[in-house]
């Protein structure tokens, strides 16, 4: 526990000793404010024109603050994450390799898993700090909106945290593969986008047979998709399977990082 704490403190300090934390925090706060403002303008515009979504002169769904303002905001922020998170995580192991400080860490009485957890938790805390200012938007909606449905609004906000933690686990993994931070950044972004978009294929593949067992492959792909699971948070129902999905991705990527971080030494 002491080891995790010492590494955690060191990493968190490192974020604030370099410009990384300041750029990411201010950048994210400004961009999220800007996106919220634009989406609010749009919401006001569409509500003054008509009551809801119309098909053939019939309103089939009324505009709501949740569906037409907050959830689009969260989805935009999730796209920002694809860039912001690798910027946060890319240095975690790559920098140690580059500076050769890896040799210090791995010859100190520390477990690799403790080093890894200390680093991961530092990025988790920074991501949480990143998301705190975003809470102002649901608060505004709650205060000024007319009986908004808070379920999806809070669910989506919670989903952003979990999404960020999953992407950070992918980021720490790609950082452990290289000493070049740019390579770590790009690889992480590609990996994230793969998990985001894999669900698009769900509708086009059908059942396949593996050893004569029929498997609904489309369903498998759908279940693997980050986007689909994030989306289900914005229904306001927090499903156990969604939480389980996010946790298992985190554990999976931390587990493989545990080995890839140590692999340069096996030689």
């Amino acid at each position, binding site marked *: 526990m*002491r*080891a995790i704490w*010492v*590494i955690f403190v*060191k990493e968190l300090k*490192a974020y604030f*000793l*370099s410009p990384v934390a300041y750029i990411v925090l201010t950048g994210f706060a400004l961009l999220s404010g800007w996106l919220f403002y634009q989406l609010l303008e749009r919401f006001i515009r569409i509500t003054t024109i008509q009551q809801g979504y119309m098909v053939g002169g019939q309103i089939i769904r009324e505009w709501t603050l949740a569906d037409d303002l907050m959830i689009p905001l969260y989805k935009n922020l999730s796209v920002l994450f694809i860039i912001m998170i690798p910027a946060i995580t890319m240095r975690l192991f790559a920098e140690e390799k580059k*500076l*050769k*400080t*890896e*040799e*210090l*860490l*791995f*010859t*100190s*009485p*520390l*477990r690799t898993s403790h080093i890894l957890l200390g680093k991961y938790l530092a990025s988790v805390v920074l991501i949480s700090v990143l998301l705190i200012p975003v809470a102002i938007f649901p608060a505004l909606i709650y205060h000024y909106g007319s009986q908004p449905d808070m379920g999806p609004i809070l669910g989506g906000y919670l989903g952003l945290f979990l999404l960020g933690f999953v992407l950070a686990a992918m980021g720490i993994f790609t950082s452990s593969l290289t000493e070049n931070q740019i390579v770590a950044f790009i690889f992480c972004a590609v990996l994230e986008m793969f998990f985001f978009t894999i669900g698009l294929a769900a509708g086009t593949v059908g059942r396949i047979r593996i050893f004569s067992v029929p498997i609904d492959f489309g369903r498998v792909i759908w279940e693997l998709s980050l986007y689909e699971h994030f989306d289900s948070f914005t229904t306001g129902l927090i499903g156990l399977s969604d939480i389980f999905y996010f946790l298992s991705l985190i554990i999976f990527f931390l587990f493989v990082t545990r080995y890839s971080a140590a692999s340069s*030494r*096996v*030689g």
Partner: protein
Amino acid sequence: MIEVEHLTKYYGDILGVEDISFKISKGQIVGFLGPNGSGKTTTMRILTTYLSATSGRARVAGFDVQEQAMEVRKQIGYLPEHPPLYNDMTVQSYLEFVARIKGVKKAEVDERVERAISLCSLDEMKARQIKKLSKGYRQRAGLAQALIHDPPVLILDEPTIGLDPRQNAELRDVIRGLAGDHTIILSTHILPEVTLTCQRAIIIHRGKIMVDDSLENLTRGKDLEQVFLRLIGQGPALDEPGTEDSGQET
């Protein structure tokens, strides 16, 4: 204090070290001598548990480097070839961090850091950022890092590389001052280094130990340089023609 038995290390097909064995007793300063690429760093990395050996055994202070790595790590202070420094930290905060990861108790950290700073004459530089240090001070910060938890065994990989003669002499004094309480292995390809600091030299060439003897015996009636060059096949008293690769830089 250090026992190495039939240690072999291959990197894939490439030989690191082959079948090396030696023993170092407590309080000795031993020079690891060899041309670049001869296996010095490999041996040190195995002893510090950074790399694992392909076969053979090594024990440090009675602990096996493979099976009791955590115990071994507590016994060792290690200065790698590139001092493992965090550029954004100050010397003081860096040493505090290293003390903590080496398992020094929180209450003792300040005292240990002070001691390491004064041992390595870093007083004037302790508030300075590491990236602003000169090469000589970087090397000293690296040594201070290795000493911080007062380990019984010190493993120093080319501690004086890239230093000017004055810095070199100062660092040598520091290292000599540590003898007695500490068992020290230092590697170098600069021969006078060994004559000035060590009591015993182990000469490695192409992953094998060529000579392991006290410095008195090695230099009796002759120059260490001659001994060294003859052993690695480049000296004047050549029995067989010297082979093409490695050892050119010495």
